[in-house]
């Protein structure tokens, strides 16, 4: 089933990739995710209201806002993790490389291979470090040069030095920060184009957090990173664009990070950023 799916979606990827290669400079083709009037409902309750957003390729885009404003919900729209919630319903258009993510020809399983996700709490599998990273490669049947791929993923996640001599040890024996970098390595191993991160450092101590932040900045050279964060300084430090969601699930403002933090358009966003509420 998945094999079949891959053959279906691959042509469009190749097309999109090549167009991007041609006019990397022109700003229009740099958009990788395009949301138009995206609304999400959980049963009767609306969690996102008509969100319009264009996310550029190979940059870090931060999503900030008070808790319960729909940041996670928006993130989970992009890789269709909301499909797993029975009550959730998504309206509007969401394009990834020009393809409608909710279109009939898109299989969420195939989509998630190209849009990876890192969660708020580190959630390594109760397996060895090696098996955690190899998991995605194995289920996708890409087991040639497995050792090399695993090592490369661990290196890109800045974890290899620390664990190179204990790859067969349980992932659960690692510290929280190491576990989170392992989860990032696990996600990188399958070569996604986009990495969604939902408050990836909120459960970590300051040292581990700063390692993750450095890592995210380096990842933006190869990947598109979309990160939800509670921490405004973090958004200011690591992101190129920032989207501010406010209570009720509306996108209040979306601009370059510098503009958002120094000179936001709306008073409400300024109040939120200066800590007057939220």
């Amino acid at each position: 089933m998945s094999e079949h799916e891959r053959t279906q979606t691959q042509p469009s990827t190749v097309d999109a990739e090549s167009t991007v290669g041609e006019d990397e400079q022109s700003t229009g083709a740099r958009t990788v995710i395009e949301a138009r009037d995206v609304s999400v409902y959980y049963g009767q309750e609306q969690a996102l209201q008509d969100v319009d957003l264009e996310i550029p390729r190979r940059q870090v885009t931060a999503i900030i806002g008070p808790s319960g404003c729909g940041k996670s919900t928006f993130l989970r729209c992009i890789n269709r993790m909301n499909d797993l919630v029975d009550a959730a319903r998504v309206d509007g258009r969401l394009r990834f490389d020009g393809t409608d993510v909710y279109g009939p020809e898109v299989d969420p399983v195939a989509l998630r291979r190209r849009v990876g996700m890192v969660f708020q709490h580190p959630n390594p599998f109760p397996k060895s470090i090696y098996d955690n990273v190899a998991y995605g490669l194995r289920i996708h049947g890409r087991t040639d040069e497995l050792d090399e791929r695993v090592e490369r993923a661990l290196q890109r996640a800045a974890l290899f030095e620390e664990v190179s001599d204990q790859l067969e040890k349980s992932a659960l024996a690692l510290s929280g920060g190491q576990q989170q970098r392992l989860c990032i390595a696990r996600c990188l191993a399958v070569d996604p184009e986009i990495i969604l991160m939902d408050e990836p450092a909120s459960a970590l101590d300051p040292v581990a957090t700063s390692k993750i932040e450095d890592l995210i900045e380096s990842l933006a050279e190869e990947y598109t990173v979309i990160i939800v964060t509670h921490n405004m300084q973090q958004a200011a430090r690591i992101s190129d664009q920032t989207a501010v969601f406010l209570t009720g699930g509306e996108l209040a403002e979306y601009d370059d990070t510098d503009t958002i933090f120094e000179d936001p358009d709306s008073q409400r966003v300024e109040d939120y950023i200066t800590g007057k509420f939220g």
Partner: protein
Amino acid sequence: MSKRSTPTEGNGVPPAAGQSPATELQRSEFVVRKERLYGWLIASCAVLTILVTVGIIAALSGKAIVFWTEISPVTFFTGTEWSPIINNAYGVLPLVSGTLIVTLCSALIALPIGLAAAIYLSEYASERARSVLKPALEILAGVPTVIYGYMALVYITPLFQGVLPLSVQLVPPSIPLVPEFTLTVPALQTFNVLSASIVVGIMIIPMVSSISEDALRAVPDSLRQAGYGLGSTKFDVSTKIVVPAATSGIVASYVLAISRAIGETMAVTMAMGMSPQMPHFPNVLDNLAVSSQTITAAMVQIAGADSLGHGPTYEAMFALGLTLFCITLSMNMMAELIRRHFREVYE
């Protein structure tokens, strides 16, 4: 329990407190006494279960030792004939073999089906399907075993007798050079191991599935999310993430189910009769077609004979009981080792 509550109790009952209402840092004497009484009650229940277990072992061993002074343990454990009443032959091996064959075959049926059912219930079934299937499984678990024995004798055996014996040519004769190989499934006797294994297998499925399901549902949802986030199908998530993470619970369910199969008596006595057999080689399928006897069935037979109360035949029952107990005990210990191993790997 006592360690934690001691300091409170010591301070809580000042000698002069009497009937005066407890101050903020004290509890009334009545409450403290009540608490202590509950502690004793709970502890005595625990002690009772231990006493019963020890009592059983003592009772079994006492008579078993008497038996082994009359019949040497070497004869008992290495003898290949069990015919206590007619031939005075007390070799336990045919009974052990009968028990192990039925247990193995029923496990081959119940362990995969039970686990698959557990995966379905925990990962795939909608709330509505679950609300129908769970009670259905519990009913299956509640069917008296004598009814299973009856089913085997009256329905399952005739069903198989209708299609057996059967010869299947595994290598088509058209292929040159390869020697012809034919699989022959023999005809079933009226009492046979096959139908006994099938009903015992069905009998222990609910045990496997309900305990395994609890273990699967206890796997944190964050692991499933991680799996889906990596582009896993539901089947990948269930079999490569959830099942491995629940291994120790699944092993526990297997052990309990196998122990139950080893101890099963009524259904096997009815379905496979009372003719002790040494294992048949090399035609292993013959083992399933014939009547045989398990340790438990042999004990029932002795208990029903008129030699009750004296003599080696009577005492043999205790030696058999002790043997059975040792088999289940070693099963449980093996399972505990497996569980520890997985705990080391995963935690």
